[in-house]
């Protein structure tokens, strides 16, 4: 039997485009434009899922993505919200959270034992006997959760993009449309966003059989779509509000981050259900769900139904259903005073009985417990929330439309920092104090009547325009709400057998709140977490207000004293792929990158740089470790070259250049000769070593300073800042990416270099630590003699555009000498062999120069340098640790690792900072922090390995190279 009816005026389905899809193994017919749920309902399939905890059969509730009764999977996606996801031809769906299909779900037996599974049961039950808990925990964990993660989910990039506008209007209902038009007319660029496929909000379904609604909708829609200043983004939701009006709009294709000059929130309200026993059976739904079903999808919610309402809205829905020829047996009004006279008359005229001061005490299920067969209607006492069983009647029906009131969709307002207040006239939280540039309009602002809503939108649009300094419009007066409250203060019907649901995501009933309060969880935040109300996938959209009202009654406090929990971004669950976007990961390449890759370099990330760790040339079968040792040996025996382009390089020019360096670094530069280099050690204000580089004096007032690769940006930034503070005449230029640098090292380095340059490279002309400028391979180069990896080494700097050329020429010249390119792994070993520590590898966030044998680099007699005063204070105190070189005992069994501890008398005395086997020296060598009294050359100390063994090491004074025979 089909529940599809004749074409409705503004239906969203396209009857010319039939589709088919599969649900739970059954073929279903649908139309383009149907959502999965609307198509299923049209096919009279009402069991759309099983609830999370008790596995109760569920159908439509809000039909607006305010609940997850209908959560399905197609094998790839686990979070298909059938109520709002359109049907695509050939879909194959099953309900999640079932074992054996949605109808025969084995989990349905849990409903029978639900008495043993109240809220918070997992805190108390199954803990004794203790040894059994892991068994129960495994069972409970398997039962929890909705859907199965698909570990083969394909990686699809959903690019993010930015958009900018003057006014962002969230929600395209009557107020949103009016607000957008007003702001656009005033000259603002407007972006209007709505999560529904088509704009119009409740104008698309809430007519109360008024024929004018359709033409109003058409007019507003056309005006908006044709307005040059308005960009409409439909089928997308505003995910959250971030500082300075940044709102991510989540579309299927990806997130658009809108930066707006101002924002108007016209997001409407969530319908809240009245609470009575078995209000969750398939066939019982919110009135607005019934209206959407009929007016958008031309599907009857039921054949013969009841409307139960605690506000005037149920009457409106009844009129819409009657106009679509749905049989309504009666309207059950929980209020003694009933509804607006006009509405009541229209309902009665349609032949529908009206019962005032009555409630649904309980729904009578069908024999399979998966549908509605009748309702038990009783007289209702609003004060006590009790049904009077002495006055009852059973009405037969196959469905119920229910209304009780609304909760504002105020998430974005809360996130923006809006102060809300509780308005008694509408029994709703409304904005009280809005932040600058944030405006609210329509039902979320407590305005419900249609004309007033449009005026309220106009008002907000005008206010936003004024805020932005656009042409001012005369102020708009909006009338406060008159008549019956759109929300009922307490639409709850007590029942001794419970199963009167408040939160359908989490299967929370009224008694759960009472029990939570009894246990002391009686403020809104604790209540939420103990009962888990509002913590399901809908995050309280359909349950929040009822929860607050129940707690208020338990505590005998007014609603505003209870307050509300806040709503966090994102408004709906958002795929992580959307949040990731493209994932920009900038990286830097040196000029020689291509050469490294061709030569088999294994590249590694050093910060944002790509550097060769070692080389495995094609066709050569060696292990990584062998490659590293070979590269290092080449430097010891003949020559090697490393690409050091990542080094920080800063030009410090000006009259005060030397004076600046003297204040910035620990050393002396005033008397440094042109053509010489000096160590440039940088401390922070606490006296901790930050960086050590080399400063070369190019000229009287020109220095070329290098820094460790990882510190380049920081050192340059700090130089800039201190330059301002000290007001000195210096200009700084960061040449890190501008110059390529390469270090040619080893006994043959001089011979190789001399083949590509005319420069005199002998010791007398070019001593250790000297700097020269010359053509190398035809390119103007800055050349330094350095001794970091080898006693004889030359560091060559050339402009990057010539870097590859110079590198290639040197490698060519070195072929006959057996030159090897070497990477960072070999460099680590080589500098270790030379006895050089690495800042921030062998030193940490607390190491001062006195602990690291750097006393000689500190010129305490200067008038000022960064960290000086701290060093003066530290000098007066005893040392706590000292960095020493060590060799490991030759008879070691287990190689210690970096960070293994030095143990002395059962206490931690230090740790290993660097350690490596050196083929050249034929010993395991390293650096370690030890106690000052352990630091003498020849002293033995113990290192505890990962497995707990103690390996002995000996402090060594001289560089390790002197230990080798060669």
């Amino acid at each position, binding site marked *: 039997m089909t529940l599809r009816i004749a074409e409705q005026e503004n239906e969203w389905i396209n009857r010319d485009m039939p589709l088919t899809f599969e649900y739970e193994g059954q073929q279903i017919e649908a139309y383009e434009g149907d959502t999965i749920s609307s198509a299923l309902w049209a096919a009279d399939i009402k069991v759309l899922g099983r609830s999370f905890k008790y596995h109760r059969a569920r159908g439509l509730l809000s039909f607006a993505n305010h609940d997850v009764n209908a959560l399905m999977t197609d094998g790839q996606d686990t979070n298909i919200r059938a109520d709002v996801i359109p049907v695509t031809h050939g879909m194959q769906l099953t309900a999640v959270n079932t074992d054996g299909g949605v109808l025969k779900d084995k989990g349905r037996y849990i409903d029978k034992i639900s008495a043993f599974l109240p809220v918070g049961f997992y805190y108390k039950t199954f803990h004794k006997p203790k040894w059994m808990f892991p068994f129960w925990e495994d069972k409970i964990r398997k039962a929890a959760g909705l859907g199965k993660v698909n570990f083969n989910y394909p990686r699809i990039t959903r690019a993010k993009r930015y958009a900018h506008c003057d006014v962002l209007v969230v929600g395209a209902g009557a107020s949103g449309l009016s607000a957008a038009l007003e702001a656009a007319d005033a000259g603002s660029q407007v972006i209007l966003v709505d999560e529904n496929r088509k704009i119009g909000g409740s104008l698309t379904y809430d007519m109360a059989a008024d024929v004018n609604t359709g033409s109003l909708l058409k007019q507003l829609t056309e005006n908006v779509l044709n307005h040059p200043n308005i960009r409409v983004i439909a089928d997308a939701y505003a995910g959250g509000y*971030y*500082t*300075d009006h*940044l709102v991510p709009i989540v579309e299927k294709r990806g997130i658009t981050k809108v*930066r707006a000059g101002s924002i108007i929130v016209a997001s409407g309200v969530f319908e809240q259900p009245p609470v009575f026993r078995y209000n969750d059976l398939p066939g019982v739904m919110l009135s607005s769900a019934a209206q959407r079903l009929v007016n958008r999808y031309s599907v009857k919610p039921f054949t013969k139904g009841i409307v139960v309402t605690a506000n005037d809205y149920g009457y409106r829905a009844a009129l819409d259903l009657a106009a679509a020829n749905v049989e309504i047996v009666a309207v059950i009004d929980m209020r003694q005073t009933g509804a607006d006279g006009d509405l009541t008359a229209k309902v009665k005229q349609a032949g529908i009985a009206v019962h005032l001061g009555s409630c649904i005490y309980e729904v009578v299920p069908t024999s399979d417990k998966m549908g509605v067969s009748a309702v038990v209607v009783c007289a209702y006492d609003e004060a006590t929330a009790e049904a009077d069983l002495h006055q009852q009647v059973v009405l037969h029906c196959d469905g119920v439309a229910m209304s009780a009131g609304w909760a504002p969709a105020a998430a974005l307002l809360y996130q923006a920092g809006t102060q809300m207040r509780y308005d008694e006239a509408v029994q709703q939280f409304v904005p009280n104090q809005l932040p600058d540039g944030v405006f609210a309009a329509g039902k979320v602002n407590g305005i419900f009547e249609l004309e007033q809503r449009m005026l309220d939108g106009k008002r907000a649009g005008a206010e936003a325009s004024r805020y932005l300094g656009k042409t001012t419009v005369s102020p708009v007066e909006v009338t406060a709400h008159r008549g019956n409250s759109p929300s009922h203060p307490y639409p709850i019907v007590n029942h001794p057998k419970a199963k009167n649901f408040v939160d359908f995501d989490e299967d929370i009933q009224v008694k759960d709140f009472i029990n939570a309060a009894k246990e002391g969880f009686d403020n809104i935040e604790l209540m939420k977490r103990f009962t888990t109300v509002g913590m399901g996938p809908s995050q309280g959209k359909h349950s929040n207000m009822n929860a607050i009202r129940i707690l208020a009654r338990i505590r005998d406090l007014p609603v505003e004293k209870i307050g509300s929990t806040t709503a966090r971004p994102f408004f709906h669950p958002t795929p992580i792929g959307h949040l990731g976007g493209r994932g920009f990961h900038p990286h830097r390449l040196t000029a020689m990158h291509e050469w490294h890759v061709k030569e088999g370099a294994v590249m590694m990330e050093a910060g944002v740089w790509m550097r060769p760790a070692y080389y495995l040339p094609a066709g050569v079968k060696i292990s990584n470790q062998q490659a590293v040792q070979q590269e290092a040996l080449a430097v010891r025996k003949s020559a090697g070259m490393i690409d050091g382009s990542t080094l920080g390089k800063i030009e410090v020019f000006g009259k005060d250049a030397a004076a600046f360096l003297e204040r910035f670094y620990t050393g002396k530069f005033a008397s440094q000769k042109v053509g010489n280099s000096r160590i440039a050690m940088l401390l922070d*204000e*606490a006296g901790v070593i930050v960086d050590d580089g080399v400063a070369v004096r190019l000229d009287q007032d020109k220095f070329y300073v290098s820094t460790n690769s990882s510190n380049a940006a920081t050192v*340059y*930034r700090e130089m*800039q*800042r201190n330059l*301002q*503070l000290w007001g000195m005449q210096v200009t700084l230029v*960061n040449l890190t990416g501008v110059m390529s640098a390469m270090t040619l090292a080893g006994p043959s380095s001089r011979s190789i270099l001399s083949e590509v340059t005319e420069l005199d490279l002998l010791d007398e002309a070019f001593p250790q630590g000297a700097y020269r400028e010359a053509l190398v391979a035809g390119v103007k180069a800055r050349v330094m003699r350095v001794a970091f990896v080898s006693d004889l080494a030359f560091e060559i700097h050339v402009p990057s555009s010539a870097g590859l050329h110079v590198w290639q020429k040197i490698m060519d010249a070195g072929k006959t000498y057996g030159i090897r390119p070497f990477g960072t792994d070999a460099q680590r070993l080589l500098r270790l062999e030379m006895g050089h520590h690495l800042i921030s590898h062998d030193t940490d966030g607390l190491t001062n120069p006195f602990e690291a044998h750097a006393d000689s680099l500190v010129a305490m007699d200067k008038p*000022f340098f960064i960290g*000086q*005063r*701290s060093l003066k*204070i530290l000098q007066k105190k005893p040392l706590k640790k000292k960095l020493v070189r060590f060799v490991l005992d030759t008879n070691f069994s287990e190689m210690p690792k970096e960070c293994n501890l030095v143990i002395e008398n059962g206490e931690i005395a230090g740790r290993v900072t660097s350690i490596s086997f050196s083929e050249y020296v034929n010993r395991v060598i390293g650096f370690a922090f030890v106690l000052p009294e352990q630091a003498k050359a020849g002293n033995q100390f113990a290192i505890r390995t990962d497995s707990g063994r103690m390996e002995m090491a000996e402090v060594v004074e001289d560089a390790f190279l002197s230990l080798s025979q060669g």
Partner: protein
Amino acid sequence: MKLLQCPVNGIRPVSEFTYGGEYREMPDADTCSDKEWATYVHHRHGAPGLKKEWWYHGPSGTWFIAERNTLTDKVSRTYLYGQENKA
């Protein structure tokens, strides 16, 4: 994401900037006591309120001061070091 105004480059998203710590006056390193120096180096004021902060605009390499209320996260003004009076 927050917007911040660089005095030279204008309003930009905060992702273009690096925070440089609170702006603090250094005591005279020659004459202050050890305790005063240690307080300057290691202690910070945690109480919320209007603070002067160093900020660095990365793409242009511009250092400037921002006066920010750390409770409301509102920046009242920004200016280049030494140009407080012109702000």
